[in-house]
């Protein structure tokens, strides 16, 4: 299309206010062109010609329209060392706090859910081996869970393409991966065996509960797209799986402010994370 159909000032603000309220993502004047373009793209894709009709459709979130709209503004692919600042926070702050709560010999447990094709849990393992001094003396258990069994099969396989490894240095790749096919690398056997992959539906308390209690949970870029009721329930299920004093990390455009008041906000140098309070409620 040669020209964007005009979206008035108030129509633009209406979309921005709505998305901010629902997702916490803030679109401002600087993003106007991109927001207008996205509206035009979505309207064209859906065969809608009137803005008011599209806005009603967006509001109703039919067919996951909010996520589809916002997808153009977020990085969706998964790769190793995505959101490195959270990994830094993990090794600099979170684990050190959690270690103080452990009995001798008790493992630190970390959960990546959803884990998709495994980049996130393997990244955690890699990062800790490379960056956490206590990794030699502290047992760590890493679990990756997803609702998609095909993703889990790929994760267990541990083979990745170039794009997934784009943030890793050649040294890291040489150290932890073996070239298994043309431009495919498989993570070394030791690491592959270190992560346990399971199915889990965040909405089902029985499924989440059977995974036990964790010190740190990574639950990124999924909760914010659930409806109100589902978000609350998922948050509660995750709360139940966190040790008192345990931490949960969301995607960097997400906030518990749109999900649940159960957790306390903790700000560290590298990230804002959420903590289950140390006293009180245990599931």
């Amino acid at each position, binding site marked *: 299309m040669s020209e964007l159909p005009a979206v*008035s*000032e*108030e*129509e633009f*603000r*209406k979309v921005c*206010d*709505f998305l901010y309220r629902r997702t916490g993502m803030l679109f401002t004047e600087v993003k106007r062109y991109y927001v207008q373009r996205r509206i035009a793209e979505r309207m064209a894709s859906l065969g809608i010609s009137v803005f*008011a009709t599209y806005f*009603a459709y967006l*509001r109703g979130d039919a067919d996951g329209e909010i996520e589809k709209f916002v997808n153009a503004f977020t990085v969706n692919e998964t790769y190793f060392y995505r959101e490195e600042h959270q990994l830094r926070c993990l090794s600099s702050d979170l684990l050190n706090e959690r270690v103080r709560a452990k009995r001798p010999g008790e*493992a630190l*447990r970390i959960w990546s859910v959803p884990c998709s094709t495994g980049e996130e849990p393997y990244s955690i*393992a890699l990062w*800790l*081996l490379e960056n956490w001094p206590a*990794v*030699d*003396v*502290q*047992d*760590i*258990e*890493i*679990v990756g869970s997803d609702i998609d069994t095909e993703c889990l099969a790929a994760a267990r396989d541990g083979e990745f393409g170039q794009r997934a490894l784009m943030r890793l240095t050649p040294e890291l790749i040489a150290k932890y991966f073996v070239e298994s096919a043309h431009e495919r690398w498989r993570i070394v056997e*030791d*690491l592959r*065996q*270190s992560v*346990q992959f399971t199915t889990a539906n965040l909405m089902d*308390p029985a499924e989440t*509960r*059977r*995974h*036990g*209690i964790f010190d740190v949970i990574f639950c990124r870029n999924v909760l914010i797209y659930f*409806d*109100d*009721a589902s978000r*609350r*329930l998922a948050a*509660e299920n995750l709360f*139940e799986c966190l040790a008192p004093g345990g931490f949960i990390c969301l995607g960097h455009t997400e906030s518990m402010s749109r999900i*649940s*008041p*159960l957790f306390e906000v903790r700000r560290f140098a590298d990230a804002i994370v959420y903590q289950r*309070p140390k006293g*009180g*409620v*245990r*599931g």
Partner: protein
Amino acid sequence: MPLVRRPSPPFEPSAAAPVSLTEGTSDQRWAAVRAAATRPDGVALLAAALPQERDPRVLEAIFTALARVATAESAAAVAPFIRSDDASLRAAALDALRAMPEASRPHVSRLLADPDPDVRLLSCELARGLPEGEANRLLSALIDGEAEKNVVAAAVEVLAEVGRPEVLAALARCAERFAGDPFLAFSIKVATDRIGEP
């Protein structure tokens, strides 16, 4: 040894769920409340536990459980807490009603007509989750008869998002009635601009 290779066996929680929602530690009450959501007598138990519970997280779990049930009965158990003197209970009640829009639907028109302006004000938010035609009809009727500025403001806030051309006349009448109030003049203008041409 780092990065444990042999994972823990699946955690098997004790089969017997705690029974009482009102006794025991907050941990125990939390677990009992969560389990109540799937029990046939759940709503009655949850409703009975609500007035006595003081722990914010157990309260949150009660409201979430009632929202999970999502029936007329569970919505009826939640709705009275909109009147609470406690702001956190009001917020929790509204959040729970918002999370069960179908079950709350029959309550909205009654709440919007409540004699207490604070109840009418808070209930405007619930209209946001109604089908658009119904939301427009109810809020339009509300603002036509409403004397309280803050209630009108709450309705206009929702209409700025859900409003359709059929409410423009009611908004115009409101603008005239409250011409002296700068905030209402401002909000009605924004809502009118957003609704656009009939």
